[in-house]
């Protein structure tokens, strides 16, 4: 990962790290239009100095801003009176028992993204931070503001659900 010497400007982020930022935003939102909105929000936060940069991994910093902006939006939407999915139902998390050739089944990227998008946002964020961005559990826990045990749980249940949805 890149380790910048100084605080990057929003223009630097857009020009040098735009593709990374867009990928993370798309994996989180599952929609190109929402990903574009999320990228704009991230760049605004960088421009306004709302996201404190700490020396270290630039991609880790960007993924933190992106995930926070995404979850802020999710929480804002949840303030409306609607039923939300707080956790994965057991029916989707149950242990899948399948032969090895099933595990090797090929899926279209769109199918995989649809499966990721169907996960509750907090589970999606854990999977994106771990398996797309490549952060370790301590970094994910710190970014999401949750205990490591919660990261373990969300990742494991999210992966099982992901595999099951694509069975």
């Amino acid at each position, binding site marked *: 990962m890149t380790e910048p010497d100084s605080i990057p400007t929003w223009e630097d982020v857009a020009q040098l790290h735009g593709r*990374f930022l867009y990928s993370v935003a798309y994996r989180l939102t599952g929609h190109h239009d929402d990903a574009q*909105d999320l990228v704009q929000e991230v760049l605004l936060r960088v421009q306004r100095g709302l996201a404190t940069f700490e020396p270290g991994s630039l991609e880790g910093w960007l993924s933190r801003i992106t995930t926070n902006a995404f979850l802020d939006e999710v929480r804002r939407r949840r303030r409306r009176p*609607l039923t939300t999915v707080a956790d994965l139902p057991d029916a989707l998390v149950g*242990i899948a028992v399948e032969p090895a050739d099933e595990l090797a089944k090929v899926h279209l990227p769109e199918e995989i993204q649809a499966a990721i998008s169907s996960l509750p946002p907090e589970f999606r964020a854990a999977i994106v931070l771990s398996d797309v961005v490549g952060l370790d559990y301590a970094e994910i826990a710190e970014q999401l503001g949750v205990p490591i*045990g919660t990261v373990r749980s969300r*990742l*494991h249940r999210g992966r099982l659900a992901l595999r099951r949805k694509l069975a």
Partner: protein
Amino acid sequence: MTDHPGDVLSAYLDAELGALEREAVEAHLAACITCQRELATADAGRGIARGLADVAPPDGFFAQIVAHGPRPKRMLDDLRPRRIGWLNVAAAAAAWILVIAVGRLESDTSAIPATIRPFLAAHASILPTFRSTSPAQTPVDTGMPSALSGSFTLLGYAVSSQGVPHAVYSDGVRTVSMFTERGRLDVSSLPLEARPIQVNARPAWRVTSADGDVVFMQNGYVVVILVAADDTMVEDVASESMTLFDDTIIDRAERAGRALLETFGLRG
């Protein structure tokens, strides 16, 4: 045998355990076929997520931002007028409806109104499951209107073979199945036989297939009418639906159309 490690298995896969915990998991795995399978499933889920490629932004997206500066985000619900608040929840509600449908399928067919049983039977390959609404499942919860064109009442949800929840309405004789999809219709994905029509003086496209009429509207709303329908009915229902929307969301981007076209074998 010790308790199943459960959530710890992914941490084991990711080399996130200390030596003692790792050894305990390995000892358990050596004797537990259930956990071996769960580990394989988690590993497969991890492999799926890790195998995803980078996603390219649209051409010129970042150049435009650099030229003009980042704009305040315009998440869809910022643009939605209050009067169509029920639509705000469409995407989230879709996932919720799907979960309900998967977990609690209606097993008592007597709960399904007799007037729509032939309709569901005729479209069983497309709409394999149906769940009638309950008093607790209000339109606010599900994000769909409780009635269309005055006489069409929401009876429940049918989940398509692609997992898309369709709201099923009936006026006692005719049946309409519809679902929402966010954003702007990708007109290029429409089949050649799509016929342009006007709905409240706005462009829409109508496609007639063996399964019925499908109306695509550019504001990202899709009306699927799964019975032979006359022009008046199609445009009445579409017009009524259209009044629930506001101009400001018309230009939203959308990926709709494609999955629907495939569902109905309409890919051009």
